[in-house]
């Protein structure tokens, strides 16, 4: 049980040691220390995952146990979903570090130290039971992320991306601070279980509602939901590939984890009577994000921005799932997040392979050149199919759980949103596979000449190479296998469903954190995959393939299509793209609008 703290402290110590010795230590030593620590943390988190399966437990730092159900110290409240997210984070950091053995000319151990700190922050964020402690780790995650985004200081893009990232996320963090202040004033507590306990039984008044909307908008900024998502594409376009792996694979999802955790530990009691209205707000936000992200994804030619927008689209889907506020919805999101994290990490690594080999990430410049590395092409295609949640893989099981949850909540149109997102994001990756690795489709697009400049600009290196180290292909291959197989391992999906049901149980959480009473959970019936789930998923995959094929081979039809058909979508798309201007002032204006909208909608609907 004491290993709970070790999961956070060991990488911190590793980072401090790496910095202390960095001026003398050779690259190999840095790699070994960082890799070793990362693997150790993966083991620790996996142990926590196993231990917390039936007995979630609270570990009080400094031995300050609650005094009469008043929490004094900081607790790490470890339940299975939290430990699971921590394990996913640790696995991806380890994979990124191993991948960068060959990929990166790491700057004197600074990179390794920052990655270990990132890992410590994510582990702490997932495991903590104290609201302010969560914010501290949120800020640590953020600070390290800003530094890692700006890694390639020789170029202009990373600097701008890091500035936009830092200012956007900091504003979000200040909203969270204000929300914490409000809750502290009302309840006199910082421990999440205790705040929830104190708010229970009282009707939700404006203070609680505003606190909730401030906390949510802050964490949703990290999660990149529309309209606070603008920073994510910028940051992804310029951050080094191993860092993008982490941003898309797990960091953005942690924002959603926080929203879910906060709701079920703090607000579920007070806002229970208004659950339906809250569902409406969250699902609406999620739907807009999913569609916006999907459309922007398909319109990209810069491969990293393409993957970034596909992450935004998936975040929208996940937000819908959480917004359903049901155990099945949570289970679906958790399963899909696991599959998506591994999948997206592998895709970014493969884009890194292309960058390493050819010096560009522009889809049209890479036209046909991927034929030299067939293996990468095969993996990329598999990744695209996984994005569309082809039947049988982990994401598919998550999707089927989400579809069932949506139908339970009487939102039969919601699975259609999931399908659209799958088609757009999977289709985009499949289209790239065709164009880059098979040489299909047009090789230049007339009107996008200035976008080509942008794609060339934030590139990591501009040298060409003749040889791709096998390690750079092996790591994504392993991750893809994991993404396919995880859902098929017996007991994993039912385990996730059980964990989600525990997560959902607001009253039980207060009991096992504050009073140390072992939790008794009602056994959960596992869901079965229905026939229509296979139908939807197969439809999504077929749709993605069709869309990719249409784009690749149908360009010859373009001049013959009447402009009345093509015109409106083109202007709409152009308008949408202009919004992503790179100007921080615009982003913050949208942030304020989002905060006002969320707060206003909550105040109006949740009374």
């Amino acid at each position, binding site marked *: 049980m004491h290993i709970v703290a070790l999961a956070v402290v060991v990488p911190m110590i590793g980072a401090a040691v790496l910095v202390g010795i960095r001026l003398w230590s050779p690259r190999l030593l840095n790699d070994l220390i960082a890799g070793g620590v990362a693997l150790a943390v993966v083991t620790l988190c996996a142990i926590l995952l196993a231990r917390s399966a039936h007995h979630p437990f609270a570990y009080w730092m400094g031995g300050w146990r609650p005094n009469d159900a008043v929490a004094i110290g900081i607790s790490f409240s470890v339940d299975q979903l939290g430990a699971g997210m921590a394990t996913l984070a640790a696995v991806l950091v380890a994979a990124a570090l191993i991948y960068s053995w060959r990929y990166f000319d790491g700057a004197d151990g600074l990179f390794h130290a920052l990655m270990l700190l990132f890992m410590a922050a994510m582990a702490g964020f997932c495991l903590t039971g104290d609201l302010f402690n969560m914010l501290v780790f949120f800020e640590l995650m953020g600070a390290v992320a800003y530094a890692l985004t700006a890694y390639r200081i020789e170029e202009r893009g990373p600097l701008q991306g890091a500035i936009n990232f830092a200012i956007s996320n900091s504003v979000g963090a200040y909203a969270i*601070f204000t929300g914490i202040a409000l809750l502290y004033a009302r309840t006199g507590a910082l421990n999440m279980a205790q705040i929830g306990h104190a708010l229970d039984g009282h009707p939700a008044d404006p203070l609680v509602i505003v606190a909730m909307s401030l906390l949510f908008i802050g964490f949703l900024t990290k999660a990149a939901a529309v309209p606070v998502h603008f920073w994510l594409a910028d940051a992804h376009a310029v951050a080094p590939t191993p860092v993008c792996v982490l941003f898309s694979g797990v960091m953005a999802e942690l924002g959603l984890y926080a929203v879910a955790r906060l709701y079920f530990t703090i607000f579920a009691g007070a806002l229970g009577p208004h659950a339906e209205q809250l569902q409406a707000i969250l699902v609406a936000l999620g739907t807009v994000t999913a569609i916006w992200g999907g459309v922007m994804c398909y319109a990209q030619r810069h491969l990293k921005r393409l993957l970034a927008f596909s992450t935004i689209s998936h975040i929208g889907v996940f937000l819908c799932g959480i917004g359903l506020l049901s155990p099945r919805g949570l289970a679906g999101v958790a399963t899909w997040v696991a599959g998506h994290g591994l999948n997206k990490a592998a895709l970014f690594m493969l884009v890194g392979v292309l960058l390493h080999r050819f010096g560009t990430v522009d889809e049209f410049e890479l036209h046909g050149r991927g034929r030299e590395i067939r293996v990468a092409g095969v993996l990329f295609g598999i990744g695209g199919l996984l994005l569309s949640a082809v039947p049988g893989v982990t994401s598919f099981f998550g999707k089927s759980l989400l579809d069932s949850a949506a139908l339970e909540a009487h939102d039969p149109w919601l699975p259609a949103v999931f399908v659209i997102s799958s088609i757009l994001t999977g289709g985009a990756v499949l289209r790239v596979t065709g164009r880059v690795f098979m040489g299909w489709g047009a090789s230049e697009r007339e009107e996008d000449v200035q976008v080509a400049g942008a794609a060339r600009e934030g590139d990591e290196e501009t040298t060409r190479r003749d040889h791709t180290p096998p390690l750079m292909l092996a790591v994504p291959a392993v991750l893809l296998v994991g993404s396919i197989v995880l859902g098929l391992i017996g007991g994993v999906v039912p385990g996730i469903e059980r964990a989600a049901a525990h997560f959902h149980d607001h009253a039980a959480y207060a009991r096992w954190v504050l009073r140390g009473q072992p939790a008794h959970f009602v056994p959960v019936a596992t869901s079965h995959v229905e026939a229509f789930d296979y139908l939807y998923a197969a439809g999504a995959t077929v749709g993605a393939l069709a869309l990719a094929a249409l784009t690749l081979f149908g360009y010859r039809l373009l001049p013959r299509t009447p402009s009345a058909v093509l015109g409106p979508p083109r202007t709409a798309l152009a308008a949408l793209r202009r919004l992503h201007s790179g100007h921080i002032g*615009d982003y913050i204006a949208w942030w304020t609008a989002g905060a006002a909208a969320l707060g206003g909608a909550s105040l109006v609907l949740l009374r």
Partner: protein
Amino acid sequence: MSFLPFAVAAWLFLAGLYGIVSSRSLIRAILSLTVVQSATYVVLLGVGYSKGGQAPIFADIPQTSKAVDPVVQVLVLTDVVIEATVTAMLLALAVQAHKRFGSLDPQDLRALQD
């Protein structure tokens, strides 16, 4: 009177946001971010105040005397450290941005657009 600190905090938050949105210089935008953070300090410290309370230092006052809330002070301390460090990083980025772009105007940062 009793709502004044919190009104000030709300005003600071909005003024800081306005500063970031309308800045023609990165330095001014970064400092406006600091203003937004000051809003959180004011709220936190305002929340913890008790009329007639002493500082929570019991070196020369009896232990049972009325004292203000020490927890918010710790929260603000953490807040200050976070702000200082993030501001330092942002200013470093501004220094490099000035070297690369030749300008600190966000309008001139055109390396990333769709």
